């Protein structure tokens, strides 16, 4: 060896593998405006479609007259439910086992529901056409309040379900009832409440909000009549699922459907579902024989494609007077809007809401969820969280604070007292999950030390005393949140979407010169997969990240995968990538043994190649093995170096974290100031710390938005009153607080690389931290629970209701 031989550290660094803060390779094109989004797809002769939408939240459609619209120059067609009926597509199946109108069939059930699809030579002509379509409505009574949905005299929304006493998830008990889902031991839980020293009960609402990605939902459909093939470019978080759904409902053979998800400008759950726009664009392309583009505007996105949350959670906790929790009872009223288009794994009508026991050792619990229909947009997607996990985390984390207040205990102490202990893992929760790993006490204590929790409480006590003496009008709140997420859906034994098991996949093909391509079944919408997936492969097979190209989103080339949402990419696709890489490595080892003339067992892995045990100078690099794999394989071995892995995870993963928000609120104006926000995340093995930090920043910003103002609100007539960014809170750099991030590492024991997923943790943990901070600030004035969102006006109103202006 001479001086030019790189050291082990240099060889390691050159790989830019797991643990490296590798710069995002996709940002080179994104920051130069060279991304390729759906709206960048421009095909010869392409037409544009746009919707006539209902101004009414509930009305009978008496007639649709397209005569004048068809006279508008450029307008070629107006598609209505009647048109769609000829191809049996007036209704479409939802992911939740319900059906949904593609275009209004007889009546409309929410404001801005799609009524007719105008197809024209350009978008402006389509808009002009929309203005000329005359729709005659007969208004019907509107149902907005979820708590009135199951009144005996509530308006009948879904006439198509008349007489159906059973839905996709069991019995229906009212004409506006979707399902009831119960988990846990009711008798045991009721008994725990009877015996309890202390109980709390509070109706905790998680209001309706919206993922609102900057790029709205859109597609281009192009049907080739000669080949009988349909190509769809779309903003799809799960392109393969879209292909299968299209095959099933449009009856086109699946190999003749090509779904391409190009660059996506944010998804956050909004782009999981199938929307009427996709169906109408496809039908319009089939009818006209030309490509048809459909691009939502902002109002359409906020008011018609999938919302999130709208869970109203009556939460009860039983405890001993020493503060040991003994039982949890939760009833959820779940407002699903006009159709149940929830994007959950099919067997889970309320997603994984049964993670609601959180990080605590509840001996018993019972959960009941009633899904109901209202005159609101359908949806119920996981907005930057795993399925209904952020609702569950908010429910239990508010509940624990309310219990602490009743017991006169510190909220952090109450949590430490009730955490599942490290030695209890794997832990079976009272509501049926097997938590794979965790070390909650360490994370919580690290958070408390990092922010000087005791010092903050002391300051708060002084400030409260000063407030009572009339020396200040500012109150201070500490929002503690400790969450356990459940991500990585999921094991085929209990997770599927419309019967498709929720595995994921990776195909790696190494080229002779030691570079390669990996195609993955996930689909980045900004998560940075092109960067991090290469890092996993780099560490596994010793080829630099820069020499691995990652490709996703084209169903013709990528192996079948279930896509990216619910923080499932690293837990599932990430595992498939590691497993495919290990297959590559296993073949490489056979080739290296042959070339080095030793037995396979005499080789050991060393950063970027194999070496003979005991003979460190006798090595063969992975790069050289790639060449040999094509040109001089052992006798009897097939040439080439490729591998495919489909990974069916044995369990979910359970990331956790300890967050705290320190906030001051001026009671006279309701104006708050986030003084400090500290987020400690444990996502197991950390693939790219820089990307993790970015993910946490983004998730916290969305949590901040939701907790402090972002809301889809309806008036009594069913008008969406927050249908644009004028009224829907979208924080910019001006409003967004400074984030401090930290971590512990508890690898997942069942995941090939020990990673657990992180993208959504900050939203799950962040919302309760903000809400607990506001509630903690007001608690000494006698308040128990103030509903979100906590905008200035509501803070001011809370202060007013508590009599501070007297």
């Amino acid at each position, binding site marked *: 060896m001479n001086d030019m031989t790189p050291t082990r550290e240099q060889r390691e660094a050159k790989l830019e593998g797991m643990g490296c803060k590798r710069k995002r390779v996709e940002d080179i094109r994104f920051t130069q405006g060279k991304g390729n989004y759906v709206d960048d797809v421009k095909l010869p002769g392409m037409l544009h479609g746009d919707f006539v939408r209902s*101004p009414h939240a509930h009305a009978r459609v008496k007639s649709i007259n397209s005569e004048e619209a068809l006279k508008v120059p450029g307008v070629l067609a107006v598609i209505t439910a009647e048109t769609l009926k000829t191809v049996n597509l007036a209704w479409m199946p939802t992911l939740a086992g319900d059906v949904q109108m593609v275009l209004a069939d007889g009546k409309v059930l929410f404001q801005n529901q799609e009524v007719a699809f105008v197809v024209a030579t350009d978008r402006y002509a389509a808009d002009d056409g929309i203005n000329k379509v005359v729709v005659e409505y007969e208004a019907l009574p509107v149902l907005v309040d979820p708590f009135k949905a199951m009144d005996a005299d509530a308006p009948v929304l879904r006439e198509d379900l008349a007489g159906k006493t059973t839905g996709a998830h069991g019995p229906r008990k009212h004409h506006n009832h979707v399902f009831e889902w119960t988990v846990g031991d009711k008798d045991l839980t009721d008994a725990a409440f009877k015996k309890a020293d202390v109980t709390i009960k509070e109706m905790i609402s998680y209001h309706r909000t919206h993922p609102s990605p900057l790029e709205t939902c859109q597609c281009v459909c192009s049907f080739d009549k000669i080949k009988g093939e349909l190509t769809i470019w779309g903003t799809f978080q799960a392109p393969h699922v879209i292909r299968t759904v299209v095959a099933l409902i449009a009856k086109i053979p699946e190999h003749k459907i090509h779904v391409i998800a190009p660059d996506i400008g944010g998804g956050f759950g909004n782009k999981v579902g199938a929307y009427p726009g996709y169906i109408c664009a496809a039908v319009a392309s089939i009818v006209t024989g030309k490509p048809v583009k459909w691009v939502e505007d902002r109002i359409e996105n906020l008011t018609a494609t999938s919302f999130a949350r709208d869970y109203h959670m009556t939460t009860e906790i039983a405890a001993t007077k020493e503060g040991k929790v003994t039982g949890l009872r939760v009833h959820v009223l779940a407002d699903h809007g006009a159709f149940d288009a929830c994007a959950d794994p099919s067997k889970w009508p309320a997603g994984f809401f049964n993670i609601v026991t959180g990080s605590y050792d509840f001996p018993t619990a019972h959960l009941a969820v009633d899904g109901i229909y209202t005159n609101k947009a359908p949806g119920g997607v996981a907005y930057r969280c795993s399925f209904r996990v952020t609702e569950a985390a908010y429910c239990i984390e508010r509940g624990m604070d309310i219990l602490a207040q009743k017991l006169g205990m510190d909220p952090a102490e109450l949590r430490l007292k009730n955490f599942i202990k490290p030695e209890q893992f794997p832990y079976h929760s009272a509501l049926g999950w097997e938590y794979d790993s965790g070390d909650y006490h360490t994370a919580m204590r690290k958070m408390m030390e990092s922010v000087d929790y005791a010092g903050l409480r002391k300051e708060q006590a002084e400030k409260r005393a000063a407030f009572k003496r009339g020396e200040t009008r500012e109150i201070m709140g500490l929002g503690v949140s400790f969450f356990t997420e459940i991500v990585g859906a999921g094991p085929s034994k209990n997770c599927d979407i419309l019967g498709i098991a929720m595995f994921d996949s990776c195909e790696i093909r190494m080229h002779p010169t030691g570079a390669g391509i990996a195609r993955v079944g996930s689909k980045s919408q900004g998560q940075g997969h092109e960067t991090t997936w290469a890092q996993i492969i780099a560490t596994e097979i010793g080829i630099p990240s820069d020499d691995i190209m990652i490709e996703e989103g084209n169903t013709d080339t990528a192996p079948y995968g279930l896509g990216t949402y619910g923080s499932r990419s690293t837990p599932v696709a990430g595992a498939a990538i590691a497993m495919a890489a290990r297959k590559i490595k296993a073949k490489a080892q056979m080739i290296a043994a042959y070339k080095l003339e030793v037995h396979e067992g005499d080789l050991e892995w060393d950063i970027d190649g194999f070496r003979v045990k005991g003979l460190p100078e006798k090595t063969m690099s992975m790069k050289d093995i790639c060449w040999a794999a094509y040109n001089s394989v052992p006798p009897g071995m097939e040439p080439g170096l490729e591998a495919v892995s489909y990974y069916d995870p044995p369990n979910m993963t359970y990331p956790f974290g300890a967050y705290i928000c320190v906030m001051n609120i001026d009671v006279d104006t309701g104006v708050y100031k986030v003084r400090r926000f500290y987020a400690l995340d444990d996502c197991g093995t950390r693939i790219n710390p820089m990307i993790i930090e970015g993910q946490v920043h983004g998730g916290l910003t969305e949590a901040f938005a939701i907790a402090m103002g972002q809301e889809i609100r309806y008036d009594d007539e069913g*008008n969406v009153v927050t249908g644009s960014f004028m009224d829907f809170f979208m924080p910019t750099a001006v409003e967004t607080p400074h984030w401090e991030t930290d971590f512990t590492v508890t690898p997942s024991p069942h995941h090939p690389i020990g990673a657990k997923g992180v993208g959504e943790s900050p939203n799950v943990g962040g919302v309760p931290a903000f809400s607990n901070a506001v509630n903690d600030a007001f608690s000494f004035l006698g308040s128990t629970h103030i509903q979100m969102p906590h905008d200035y*006006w*509501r803070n001011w109103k809370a202060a007013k209701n508590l009599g501070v202006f007297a």
Partner: protein
Amino acid sequence: MQMNDSQRIPAAKEKVWAALNDPAILKQCIPGCQSLDMSSPTEMTATVVFKVGPVKATFGGKVTLSDLDPPNSYRISGEGSGGVAGFAKGGATVRLESESPEVTILHYEVDAQIGGKLAQLGGRLIDSTARKLAGEFFTSFAAAVGGEAEAPAEVVTEAEGNKKSWIGRLTGAD
């Protein structure tokens, strides 16, 4: 949304009443009215251009007069559709009171509902726009009937006056 107000008109009650039933005068006074045609003594069809915030639309609809008690009071109600901009419906109960043989006080109670894009985008502007339009109508009406206009009295918006503070009106929050 509800509004109560009154307008002092320098004309005799009978003259004011006649004007209230005269499509030509109503057309002249309704802000943005493009056409108003009487199809029967109590029914009219109207086209009105209405603008709230960023939304401008032509509303077509029908206007009905009911509860007629000449020359004292009636209810004027209507509903119209502005296509993609949304819909509006509502009415006003109008009551005339003689202050003197030459001066009439016109009392009105307006209730209105709107839906669609108007309500979504113009939500925060609707109350103020409605007050402005009502003010414009009655000022023009007073001028058309009495030959001179007087400043409208202070508007009391009942729903807001009772239920919402000024911040509630600004934020739209309840």
